[in-house]
């Protein structure tokens, strides 16, 4: 609490402004973290799908359909992080 008071005094910003700035930066950080997980997931998902399609091109239609739905479901996690970001930090 003392550190917070010192920071307010040093920056000259009022406490509400500082809290808003910290909320915005925390939300941005959380959105970045929320985007990393789906990025890894999509990379793994597409990599395995490409491997499957290269081995069995006759099954490509089925693999592409499930891959596309998998990408969209994984992306939903990033969208949830984004919505939290716009509600808290934007």
């Amino acid at each position, binding site marked *: 609490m003392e550190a917070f008071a010192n920071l307010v005094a040093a920056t000259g910003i009022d406490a509400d402004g500082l809290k808003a700035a910290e909320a915005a930066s925390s939300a941005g950080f959380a959105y970045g973290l929320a*985007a990393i997980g*789906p*990025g890894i997931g*999509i*990379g793994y998902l*597409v*990599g395995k799908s*490409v*491997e499957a*399609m*290269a*081995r069995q*091109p006759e099954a*490509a*239609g*089925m693999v*592409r*359909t*499930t*891959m*596309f*739905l998998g*990408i*969209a*479901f994984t*992306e*939903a996690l*990033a*969208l*949830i992080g*984004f*919505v939290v970001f*716009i*509600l808290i930090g*934007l």
Partner: protein
Amino acid sequence: MTMTEPDPITTVLSGPSTEAMVSKDIIRRGLIVAPLLIAVCGFIWGLNGAYSSAYGVAIVLLNFALAAAIVATTARISLGLMMGAVLFGYLVRLGLIFLAVLLVKDAGWISLPALGATIIVTHLGLLVWEMKYVALSLAHPGLKPARP
């Protein structure tokens, strides 16, 4: 007998683009449920909620269309290219959604809770709805699922 490893760089997919079909189905269903979503958001958040909900539905449907277009276009060139395009496409699409929201965040008609709720509900709802039909057609290829 020697086994040759498949090369994703030179493998090309021909035939109908299934993700384009799935995406068209999702967009068609999205347009069917859009008035209901807009009405619900309008009831909860007022006129601003209705406008924001319409904007959110448009963002989600365009996102699906763009994702399908990226996969369908690059799969005809190379599987390796498709993988790169999907990964960078994910980043680009997230950036575009961020930009679309950033452009309107200070507009008088925007309601951020309505926009956020619409994005999540529309995205997940349409996916679950589409998955029901895709799962049925994969499990029973001879059956044609009834239209909604």
